[in-house]
């Protein structure tokens, strides 16, 4: 038993988060209703402690735990940090918002923490059993969170759709895991890579894994739940869903795909991701163009961002395919680093934007239609400026973080293409992706700027009373916009951290 406790020590960030979740649950049950304003602070404290514990393990190399169920490495820690940041921002933004929508319960804080803990474990899992369980902890908490504002019909509907489709896709994922287990007699991610042969079974399992993770990250054609769930869920939860679920989903996807299916396998999976990325970028952007609801527009834009991140995965697949092209290996780490950097930039842009949306428009509704945004610059100039920064950054216009992120990803694809051409391989898949990515992101400026347009050049409508945002919301909006600018102007440091995070997967 002692050795078990000793072994659990490196898991302390996750354990702190789960402890905090239980504490919030109990505090919610035993505290009086008028004290419920204190609940988010439990969450904030928990996240702060967990973050300190997390930093403690950064740079210590790999730590294997519990007979290989968990691997704590730079990649897992990086993703965990993103998740904790997302969780923190969500708590801050929830101050006031949760009360207004009537879900200021201990369970809300608790479920957010449970979800975060599950996501962190998901990013650290080295075993399909742990991976599946942490995925489920995450998903079940998020299903409930999506339906948190119980009296809103849209909210019920969002939870319902998300739940049914989520459970549906989880079943596929699970079947995939079963097939992989059947083919390899192991659930250890690292052991799967050693197995040769038995291809149809294993490859069917791989396909189903792609489906399961593709669903979680919102890649087309498994993106169908995204718009409805994002639109219906409360704004703070949507932000958390958009960022943390995507980060965790990508963490699991990258770890499983890159570690369990490297080398010869890469040439099976990269064409699939190629098509998926193409479709995702195309669909996300083209449907976003004519949305009148900004929340829904951001959902489609989130889909598009998934597509851009997937470009990195395809580049990694092409670069990692056997036979290796000399020099290709050196490209892989920067590409993976670019993807991780993208996730970081995406975190701030998206959470900031959803924080703005959680400002009230009327009564209990979020600030979500274009009309709600008209003349925002006159009513709330600072908030409007921050929103403009988030949107322009999402559009990939320099000098904000979103541009740098896209630049790294597109550059990765072009570099891989250049290396292929230099070694005489006449295939243009990477180039096609990069070009479509650039075209679509060029045109995405259209729908992002449209919101800016409404904020700055329309007169405010009469029936939109202004609700004073809480200090937490103000702080979140301010801090995220600063972060986006810093990521755009001083990306080097963050990129090197991201590349170190990627070292655990590709060197």
């Amino acid at each position: 038993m002692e050795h078990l406790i000793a072994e659990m020590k490196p898991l302390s960030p996750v354990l702190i988060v789960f402890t905090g979740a239980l504490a919030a649950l109990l505090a919610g049950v035993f505290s009086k209703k008028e004290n419920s304003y204190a609940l988010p602070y439990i969450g904030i404290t928990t996240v702060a402690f967990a973050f300190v514990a997390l930093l403690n393990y950064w740079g210590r190399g790999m730590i294997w735990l519990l007979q290989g169920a968990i691997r704590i490495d730079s990649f897992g820690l990086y993703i965990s940090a993103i998740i904790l940041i997302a969780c923190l921002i969500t708590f801050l933004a929830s101050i006031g918002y949760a009360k207004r929508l009537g879900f200021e319960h201990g369970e809300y804080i608790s479920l957010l923490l449970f979800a975060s803990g599950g996501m962190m474990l998901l990013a650290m899992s080295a075993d399909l059993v742990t991976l599946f369980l942490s995925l489920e902890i995450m998903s079940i908490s998020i299903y409930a969170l999506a339906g948190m504002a119980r009296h809103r019909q849209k909210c019920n509907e969002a939870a319902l759709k998300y739940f049914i489709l989520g459970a549906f896709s989880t079943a596929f994922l699970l079947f995939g895991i079963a097939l992989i287990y059947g083919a390899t007699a192991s659930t250890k991610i690292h052991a799967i890579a050693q197995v040769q042969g038995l291809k149809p079974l294993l490859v069917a399992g791989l396909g189903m894994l792609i489906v399961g993770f593709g669903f979680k990250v919102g890649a087309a054609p498994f993106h169908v739940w995204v718009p409805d769930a994002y639109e219906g869920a409360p704004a703070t939860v949507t932000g958390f869903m958009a960022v943390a679920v995507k980060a965790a989903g990508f963490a699991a996807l990258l770890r499983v795909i890159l570690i369990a299916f490297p080398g010869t396998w890469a040439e099976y999976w990269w064409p699939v991701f190629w098509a998926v990325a193409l479709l995702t970028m195309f669909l996300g952007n083209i449907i976003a163009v004519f949305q009148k609801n900004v929340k829904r527009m951001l959902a489609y834009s989130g889909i598009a961002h998934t597509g851009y991140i997937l470009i990195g995965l395809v580049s990694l697949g092409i670069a990692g395919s056997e036979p290796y092209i000399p020099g290709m290996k050196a490209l892989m780490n920067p590409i993976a680093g670019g993807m991780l950097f993208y996730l970081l930039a995406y975190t701030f842009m998206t959470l900031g934007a959803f924080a703005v949306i959680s400002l009230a428009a009327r009564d209990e509704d979020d600030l979500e239609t274009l009309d709600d945004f008209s003349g925002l610059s006159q009513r709330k100039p600072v908030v409007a400026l921050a929103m403009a920064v988030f949107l322009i950054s999402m559009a990939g216009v320099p000098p904000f973080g979103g541009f740098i992120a896209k630049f790294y990803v597109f550059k990765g694809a072009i570099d891989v293409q250049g290396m292929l051409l230099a070694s005489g391989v006449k295939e243009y898949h990477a180039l096609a992706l990069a070009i479509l990515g650039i075209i679509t992101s060029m045109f995405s400026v259209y729908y992002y700027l449209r919101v800016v347009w409404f904020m700055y050049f329309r007169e405010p409508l009469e029936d939109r009373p202004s609700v004073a945002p809480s200090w937490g919301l103000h702080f979140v909006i301010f801090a995220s916009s600063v972060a986006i600018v810093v990521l755009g102007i001083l990306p080097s440091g963050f990129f090197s951290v991201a590349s170190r995070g990627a070292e655990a997967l590709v060197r």
Partner: protein
Amino acid sequence: MIENNTIFLIPLMPLVGFLINGLLGKGLRRSTIGMVACAMPVISFAVALSLFIKFSQFGLECDLTFRQIMIPWIGVGSIGVPFGFAVDHLTIAMTLMITGVGSLIHIYATGYMSHDRSPERFFAYMNLFMFSMLVLVLADNILLMFVGWEGVGLCSYLLIGYWYEDILNAKAGKKAFVTNRVGDFGFLLGILLIFALMTGNGTPSLSFAKINEVIPKFAPVTYEVPVIGGSIGAVTLICLLLFVGAAGKSAQIPLYVWLPDAMARPTPVSALIHAATMVTSGVYMIARLAPVFMASPAALSVVATIGAVTALFAATIAVTQNDIKKVLAYSTISQLGYMFLAMGVAAFGAGIFHLITHAFFKACLFLCAGSVMHAMAGELDMQKMGGLRKWMPITFWTMLVSTMAISGWPLFAGFFSKDEILWKTLEKGMTSQQGTLFYVLYGIGLLAAVFTAFYMFRLVVLTFLGKPRMSEETQKHLHESPSSMTIPLMILAFLAAVGGFMWLPGVIGHGKFAWFHDFLAIREPAAHGAHDMAGAEWTSLALSVALALGASGLSYLVYTRGRSAVEKLAKTVYLTRAMYRFSLNKYWVDEIYEAFVIKPIYYGSIALWLFVDVVIIDGLVNLAGILVKWGSTIFRNLQTGFIGSYAVTVLVGVLVVLWYLILQVLK
């Protein structure tokens, strides 16, 4: 490479102005807002001037660069892309022009926008624009230039908001959007390709110095084009992609359509963004990367051809426009075409020279037009003007000076710069192997000059001379503009008059009075046997002078005297019996003239405009819009909102993935 730590002040000042007016502007007084907005570019100008003096201390021929690295920016591999500025001769010339002309336009705007609802917003955007433009020009690497590039575009869109309710409903916004996106797409792809080549070469840097050094070495590398089956040189590909970007920003065929529509914005904006600075950034970019373009003669020919064709094409359209700003817009496109022609014949110095003189006279022209509009309560139609000289003498005289400059009257700025470009084109034709192309381009350039003089004098005559055609009511309110507007006009007109003396043609100055040429010091190919061609150069000079004066006179006569002018023309030119017969049959002459000169030009121009602008480009833009809308609607409707349909979508995805993977394995 000399370190200098004052460069950052140049772009910083407008940024400070933007922040002050943008954040505090609501609470400031009108005069304070104007003061802040004007002071910032003036300070930048002073800093730039101090830098310029430093250059002069080193001597003009000395090829040196001041550099200031602020912070490391994007780290890739061992060497990163820094956030830094570099100033060489080309840059300082551009910077002086931007801050100088920019300051004047800001001062003018304080008068022009004096009745505006919210001047703080306007000035905030103007300053933000100045900031982006200066970043674009001062950037030491191409990525930072792209930052400025996107920044100026953004400010340009934001300023559309002054006149339109919704970006979606504004056709102007849509066109500007689509064409600029196409351009930016080419530019970004070019940057990525440069990055790939630079990385492949082991010099992962994007600074202009490094790019200009390394990329030309890739000239022998070719890529096969998969669909067509041909091959294209790596450097040519880069140049063409960059040129797509330049054409988008600088309104060249086929991406020019947004510029005339952009004229709906306040006149100072047109003067600053759409005449003097932003639209010239494409030219600047090519000059900046001159060694790269030099490595690809094919790309240069494309640049030259597009430039010359644009110059003529836009000039012919300008002849028939009645909207005063539209004429100036097409004129800008045409002049930009000249600059690209200069780039294309590797006369980079001459192109930049024309860029700067053009900034003087075109800014002056726009501001004069603004002055007229100010007096005429926003009227733009020249048919409803006339005789304004009486009320607005300063505006008239400044406008006349700039018109003479743009038309190429001897000793005015435009004469020297335009003639330099034409001469270089001719020289290229005489020296290079595919001379024919350049002879043709020279001819096109000359023809465009004729049209330029014609439509510019038409503009002046219709606006300022003849009988007033406006209503009595309007006449009562006519007045000269306040001094805050006329003083910048006079300064600009003065510059437009004498600016050309910076660089006299070789045959006149014998290389002694061309300090601007020396100053730019862009490595141009040395002119072969310049002395043997003195005769040719004189001929060219004389030809363009004659054409410019002739076309101006013709235009003057046609639009002042009308039919009697034709009569007079006939008398002065043909002094023989035949002339007498013409004179007798003046209706007949007139009809010939109508039938063979005016009508073809008129209808040709209209047809060109209708066909190319309205049918092809508008059609393409609309088609793109329709396709997007169509696609959007179709795919939106697939998102039915029913759980069952969503599950089917997911299932279909599963089946396709499984089908593909299983087939792959069984292969």
